[in-house]
């Protein structure tokens, strides 16, 4: 719909994305320092980083964190969603 060819996307978003990337690096350092790298959420996070090499990166990251089963569960799992799939 919109012709984005000539829009200054880097002027708009580079500093913000740079800052978020450093935040991610610092988050990973923090988890490593505290020896929590075996948590299922962190494992899913590291796995999702591979999606940055795909074409539709945002969609791929969201898919990486998603439950891909298709049958309704017998009961609703307790507590809020945590953002990553816990495999028991």
């Amino acid at each position, binding site marked *: *719909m*919109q012709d*984005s060819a000539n*829009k200054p996307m880097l002027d*708009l*978003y580079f500093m913000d994305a740079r800052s978020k990337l450093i935040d991610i690096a610092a988050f990973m350092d923090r988890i490593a320092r505290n020896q929590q790298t075996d948590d299922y959420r962190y494992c899913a996070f590291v796995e999702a980083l591979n999606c940055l090499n795909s074409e*539709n990166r*945002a*969609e791929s990251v*969201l*898919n990486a*964190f*998603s*439950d*891909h*089963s*298709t049958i*309704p*569960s*017998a*009961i*609703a*799992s307790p507590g*809020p*969603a*945590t*953002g*990553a*799939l816990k495999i028991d």
Partner: protein
Amino acid sequence: MRYIEPHAHMVSRTTDDYQALVMAGCRAVCEPAFWAGFDRSSVASFYDYYRQLTEYEPKRAARFHLPHYSWICINPKEAEDLVFAREVIQIIPKFLEKETVLGVGEIGLNKNSKNEVAILEEQVQLALDHDQLILLHTPHLEDKLKGTQLIVDILQQDPRVNPNKVLIDHVEEHTIRKVIEAGFWAGITLYPESKCTPPRAVDMLEQYGSSNRLWMNSACDWGVSDPLSLPKAILELRKRSFSEEEIDRLVYQNPVRFLKQSPKFKLDI
């Protein structure tokens, strides 16, 4: 700039928020029935909530000259107890007749359980029996992909469902295509942390905005949320060189076109 806030849980917000919405250009606010942040203990508790949505909240909004509409249902988070949920559903029809109620919502799924699916199906039937618009909540985070697919499948199985009269809310990059390609309306929710930022919303609008079946909302509630996220998205659209006409179509005309399918919604394009 004029806009519609088509999804906001105003019972959780202050009068300052009403004032801020109006000053930012909001012309109408629509409030779906949802979870209170804790489970309600009785049918009477839902009855009182529906009265709040249909009687008290429109008066509170009117003090700021803002039309307030609502949607009525039992939300998916409180649908796990089938007996209780069905008792609540019994009291819904009389509220669907109220002059500011636009339809059945926000129904849908939370944890994608069998009982949630059963209550979703029963409330879709309720909407069809009473010729109501339908507003659907899709699950959060890791449950969204599966829940959105289940919802689309359930709706497509019933030939009485008219996709023009159904909006599936809280889409993200991994669910928007399947909702729009199935012919339903899609809602993009601007919500800090768990849903979508204004730059990502504009990315989706660049790719799918020509479909005319999209709206944006704040879904502001009792959690960390922002009732002014829509005006902030308008600013983002301007940064991305959308014309004023295009922005008006996305934030005002689109929601009005969907909502006007209910004869109770009084605003015009």
